[in-house]
């Protein structure tokens, strides 16, 4: 089966088409960002890329800072692959893919210094804000990383810091007017390699066939983070092509994010 599909997808790409309808062969499927979706979260967003659907929630709580960074807030990303999203996802502790997704999203946000952690400090060495970013996959039709990063940034952009009472406890139902301090709005673009073809925004049927993939987290002109997956390898020429393509595509994603 795989060989039939592979041959067809490459054939199609060389003729300028993809399996689902898009503007051109190198563009994303239709992207929809909705917010808010969760009443109890400080900020939340639902991102749809084609049939892929992801819900991201941002929750804030106070915590003790790490000892090496006493005046900086903490960020944590978790991802959950619920069985409703895909017949291959199973309940239970997170699998390799879920951990990878969470870590890639974490790295994209952390390495571009998107969250101004110094401003999340309440009292140096004692109390800081801890930002939880929870990713829930609602439907898997490929390209989960791009959708999750987009969702995480959209949710962070809208997240409000909750109020504190006199003793410094968090009042979860009340929010201040302050947003979570952001320095940048990075996005990630994954490029999938299928034989000699580089695909953008692969859907599930394409993703099952790929030799390798590389995710580049960018903001503006700069690449901040990277993650490679799959068994295959990229040649240096292909890699240079990937970087150029990713920066271009990330600018488009950031444009969508800035409108929202």
């Amino acid at each position: 089966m795989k060989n039939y599909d592979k041959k067809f997808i490459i054939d199609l790409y060389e003729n300028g088409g993809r399996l689902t309808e898009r503007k051109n062969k190198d563009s994303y499927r239709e992207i929809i960002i909705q917010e808010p979706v969760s009443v109890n979260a400080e900020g939340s967003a639902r991102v749809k890329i084609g049939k892929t659907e992801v819900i991201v929630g941002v929750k804030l709580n106070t915590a003790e800072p790490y000892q090496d960074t006493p005046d900086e807030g903490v960020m944590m990303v978790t991802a959950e692959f619920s069985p409703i999203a895909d017949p291959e996802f199973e309940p239970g502790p997170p699998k390799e893919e879920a951990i990878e997704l969470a870590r890639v999203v974490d790295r994209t946000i952390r390495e571009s210094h998107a969250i101004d952690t110094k401003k999340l400090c309440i009292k140096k060495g004692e109390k800081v804000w801890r930002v939880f970013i929870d990713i829930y996959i609602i439907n898997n039709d490929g390209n989960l990383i791009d959708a999750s990063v987009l969702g995480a940034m959209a949710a962070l952009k809208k997240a409000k810091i909750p109020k504190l009472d006199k003793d410094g406890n968090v009042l979860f139902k009340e929010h201040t007017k302050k947003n979570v301090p952001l320095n940048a709005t990075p996005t990630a673009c994954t490029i999938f390699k299928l034989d000699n073809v580089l695909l953008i925004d692969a859907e599930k049927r394409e993703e099952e066939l790929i030799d390798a993939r590389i995710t580049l987290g960018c903001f503006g002109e700069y690449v901040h983070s990277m993650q490679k997956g799959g068994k295959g390898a990229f040649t240096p020429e292909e890699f240079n092509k990937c970087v150029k393509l990713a920066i271009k595509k990330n600018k488009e994603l950031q444009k969508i994010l800035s409108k929202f």
Partner: protein
Amino acid sequence: MNKLIVASREVAVPGDLIAEGMNFVAGKNTYRKDEKIYSNRLGLVDVRGSVIKVIPLSGRYMPQKEDLIIGEVKEVGFNSWQVDIGAPFTANLYMSEGTTTYIRKDEDLSRYFNVGDKLIGRIISCTSTGSLQITCKGPGLKKIKGGLIIKINPNKVPRAIGKKGSMITMIKELTNTEIIVGQNGWVWINGDAMDILKAKKAIELIDKKGHVKGLTDAIKNMLEKDSRIKPVK
């Protein structure tokens, strides 16, 4: 006292009273209790003369004898292949039904069909206990090479084929492709890559809007609008 309670082309749920009286005949997906006919499935009621049947809106493919199907080989055994056809149980393709060529003793069967290969077959027997035999010998039955396979709702297959194949013939002519629709809802499209894409779009529309009237015209319009190839007359 013959009365039709649910009109033709209306929705019925399981247990819905469709008609009363002995002049009606309970067809597929319906059952008779005393003088009344009830629905067995969620679907659209179809009344043809005195025969009442319910066309289900969704559900898995239930294999029937003589059905043309498209399947994928899941396992190579020592004298047979196991084939997934989207039914509740896997189908068995026996060695002698797989190929017309002579198979020598101790020969590797994956030479003929390997795991992942797709084929067009026909059901030769199926029982309620789960035994399902298919054949790949006969006119039009073969191993599939190239093209694209898409899966649609098996209940929409009659709509995808149309009356005497009218719908499928139209799509074939307008997109210049070769299409085979298996009764199990798997559709094989072959041709140029971009033509396949166009046919795929049309078949997916049937899958989505199969219950709507005037679908043939809608698809004809859609295909003619973005068609490079003019239909051959």
